[in-house]
């Protein structure tokens, strides 16, 4: 494999390294700072793609940091599912970054933009690490990095609302990490391992002797990841944080950060805890019902919002619930649906936040009732919004339908049509709050009253890219689905 054998580590290292140099570049060679981040993201993307091809050819690949074998050394694992997550993660963050180039200057003070680049690279790097790692302690460290940088890209805007929201986020997130650490300790106590694969083996034996420890650990994990991924009812921090942050940060947080934690919870359920544990206590069932509640309540809360970004944030709570549903249904088709939804929702929600960003950039309006007639002055933006909301509702021809298709199919497959109804009802609720915005934007007799600044080309281009991808996900989903089916088959 030659040089490419170090790729799993290099993906993370390249991004962290860029984080260190970007403030320096921003100070001394300002023109190079943004291209450096783009180059790093592109390099990471290229490495992921190479790895994906190799994994498809040669099977799953383990990387031992510094040549130390597990259980003591740090282990990274490259399997199709993780690499799929990485492809989504890195390409979406590249796309958001390109959009951010213009939007940041509008929302942030010039002197902090260099630091924003740093935080951005650290955030992407740590998420890549969370996805790749095969070791609980390493996961803990990366989660801390991720949480702190996520808070920082909210509070970097330095207004009162952002500081308050990011403080709330920081506290709850720290609580989540605390729970996680406690859970890790419990598992380490009964098994002596931190590596996923070793834990999986050891827990089968340990379960007979220390069931309580293991249950507690599992419960703590659900709370920890549930808080971080905004699983209902642990979502309270999300609307404030996502709504007040600068738009590129909101796109990042809603589009990617919460999904990484959902993915981490998935790894706990499928790679750490053996089946005996999950069968003894209906952990999946708990997640499933919380997800069902979240899908309904997220949408209901979203309906009563008056602020556009707050509405999008609540909608994220409902959408992340689909992903949790995919994990909780415990069926390979459900996993396909859930993971497809990770990709679809990452693109869709990021695009919707971009739209919100463009509206704020160009008109300064945030309130939903002031958006009437805006489709006539910002046509591209509002068409993007229309397509995005169609995908949220699951109109055929958009990606949202495909993920719902798989989730519904697996719910039927395990003989629980009630969850199909939940999915359908929540789609209907989505339609009820997204459609009036679209209708008022285009079909209202009133003219838009505010002054309108022209939208920069790069922002329009980003939105067009988003639309194109949403439609592609709706029609040409077969390759991705086939990949996911293969990946999901490994767990059953």
């Amino acid at each position, binding site marked *: 494999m030659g040089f490419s054998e170090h790729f799993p580590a290099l993906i993370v290292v390249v991004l962290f390294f860029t984080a260190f140099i970007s403030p320096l570049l921003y100070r001394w060679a300002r023109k190079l700072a943004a291209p450096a981040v783009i180059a790093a993201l592109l390099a990471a993307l290229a490495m992921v793609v190479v790895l994906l091809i190799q994994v498809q050819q040669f099977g799953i690949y383990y990387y031992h940091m510094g040549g130390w074998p597990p259980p003591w050394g740090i282990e990274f694992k490259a399997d199709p599912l993780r690499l799929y997550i990485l492809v989504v993660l890195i390409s979406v963050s590249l796309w958001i970054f390109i959009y951010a180039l213009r939007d940041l200057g509008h929302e942030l003070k010039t002197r902090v933009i260099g630091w924003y680049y740093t935080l951005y690279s650290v955030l992407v790097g740590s998420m890549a690490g969370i996805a790749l790692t095969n070791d609980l302690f390493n996961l803990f460290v990366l989660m801390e990095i991720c949480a702190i940088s996520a808070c920082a890209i909210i509070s970097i805007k330095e207004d009162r609302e952002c500081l308050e929201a990011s403080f709330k986020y920081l506290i709850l997130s720290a609580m989540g990490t605390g729970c996680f650490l406690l859970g890790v300790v419990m598992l380490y106590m009964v098994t002596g391992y931190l590596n996923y694969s070793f834990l999986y083996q050891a827990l089968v034996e340990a379960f007979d002797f220390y069931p309580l420890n293991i249950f507690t650990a599992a419960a703590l994990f659900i709370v920890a990841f549930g808080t971080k991924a905004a699983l209902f009812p642990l979502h309270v921090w999300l609307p404030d944080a996502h709504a007040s942050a600068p738009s590129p940060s909101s796109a990042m947080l809603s589009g990617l950060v919460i999904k990484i934690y959902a993915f981490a919870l998935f790894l706990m359920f499928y790679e750490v805890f053996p089946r005996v544990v999950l069968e003894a206590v209906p952990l999946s069932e708990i997640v499933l019902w919380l997800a069902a509640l979240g899908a309904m309540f997220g949408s209901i809360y979203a309906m009563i919002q008056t602020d556009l970004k707050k509405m999008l944030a609540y909608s994220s709570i409902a959408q992340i619930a689909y992903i949790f549903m995919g994990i909780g249904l415990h069926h390979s088709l459900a996993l396909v649906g859930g993971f497809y939804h990770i990709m679809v929702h990452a693109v869709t929600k990021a695009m919707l936040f971009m739209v919100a960003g463009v509206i704020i950039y160009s008109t300064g309006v945030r309130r939903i009732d002031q958006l009437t007639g805006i489709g006539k002055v910002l046509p591209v933006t509002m068409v993007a919004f229309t397509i995005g909301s169609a995908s949220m*509702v*699951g*109109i*055929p*021809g958009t990606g949202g*339908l*495909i993920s*719902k*298709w798989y989730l*519904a*199919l697996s719910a*039927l*497959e395990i003989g629980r*049509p009630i969850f*199909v*109804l939940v999915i*359908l009802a929540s*789609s*209907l609720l989505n*339609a*009820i709050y997204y*459609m*009036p915005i679209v*209708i008022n934007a285009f*079909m*209202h*007799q009133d003219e838009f009253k505010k002054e309108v600044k022209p939208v920069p080309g790069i922002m329009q281009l980003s939105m067009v890219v988003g639309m194109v991808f949403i439609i592609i996900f*709706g*029609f*040409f*989903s*077969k390759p991705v*689905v*086939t990949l996911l*089916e293969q990946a999901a088959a490994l767990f059953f």
Partner: protein
Amino acid sequence: MTPVIMYSCRVSDLFRNTLSIVTAAITFILTLSLYGFVVGGGEIQLTLFEVLPNLEISMRLDLLSFCLAALASFVWLLCTIYSVDYMAKEHACGRYYPVFIFTLGSCQGIFFAGDLFSLFVFFELMSLIAYILVIHEETEEALKAGYKYLVMTIIGGLALFFGMIIVFELGGTVSLGVGVILQEPSMLALLAFICFLIGFGMKAGMFPLHVWLPDAHPVAPSPASALLSGIMLKTGAYGLIRVIFHVFSPEMLQSVGWNNILAVLAVITILLGSAVALTQTDIKRRLAYSSISQLGYVLLGLSILNNNAITGAVFHIFSHALMKSILFLAAGAIIWKTGLRVIADLKGIGRQMPVTMGCFSVAALAMIGIPPLNGFLSKWTLAMGALDAQMPLYVLVLLVSSLLNALYYLPIIIPAFFEMPGDNGHDHHDHHEFEFNIQEATPRMLSVMIILALFTFIFGLTPNNIAFSLSRVTAEFLLLGGAF
């Protein structure tokens, strides 16, 4: 087949009027050119590409799809021609025409869809795009009606989605080319059947899901209402035909009696639609309620499930499309020319616009079922079907509803010709009793209505005309198991 793709590309705005007509004409000709092939019993099943494993976008051509596609493109062509004059007074034509043609495209897509999934995709596309036609006027009332329409459409779409998922789960495929997908009745299959009833019945204005229809149809511009009532309602009926014959099988439905659900709902729909139409004062609203009851005939025909009844149902799709388009276009011409919508104000309009009202009368008489017109033939066949099935009750329903039709159409026609405009008192001066004060719509609008009226004659005169024999062949084709 190709029409679908062609259309979507040709929504440019330059010379848009001519272009729209030309596009509609090309579609019609292309569809007709398939005639020879289809009548020879030909059938095509073509897969375009796979969206998911076992789930593809595919096209299918058989008798039934040909009948409906030809009908749709014909009426569409005439309505487009009509629109040119009608819309000249209206705003936002740049939006109207592309949407108009795009809807035609997705409508043809529905008729040529080769599996439930593509049917669903095109169905949703058409319904959502038609929303723009519904709210074209952008008045408060139109927006409200449109919102109702949209919410109902989405509910219907979700129901279809649910039904489709169940079929896929039970049968492993949703293709319409494999014959019967669900052989065994089960709870899930019943659930799927109900979901399809909700989804397609919503579109077809079936009771109790018709509530959006009387609001949405009248507020649209008249050519659009003609299409909404004349063609787009039929997509719902078409979907039900496909579901009954290709997903389930008539024998199975009859053996477990699920077709009775449809029959009961159809009877209620027929009577309720006619009865409520009586109470309407707005001419377009009255027409909309009449559409509900007429679609009830089609559904009734489907629920009886024998040769005559299916023939009647398919033929009624033809005749109702023609009749209702005339009625809406004539009503549109009156509104366009005089601005009058309330039925009480239409006294003496026959003297002002004799040709328009003439066409209106022909269509109204056809609705009532007066013998030489096509409405009679479809009712006759439906009644025969009902008798074949030993259900004289249904014949009674048909007769009562015809009576009701007469009750609400004749009071429009008679005063229109035989009373004076503004004739309130009796001692009105009599001397210009026979004076015709002609202020007609434009020749183009008139010619469209006349062509349609001629067709109601032709299709009604003898049972040997092309539409009727096509319906007969289609019914046989469907009863023989759907896919040869």
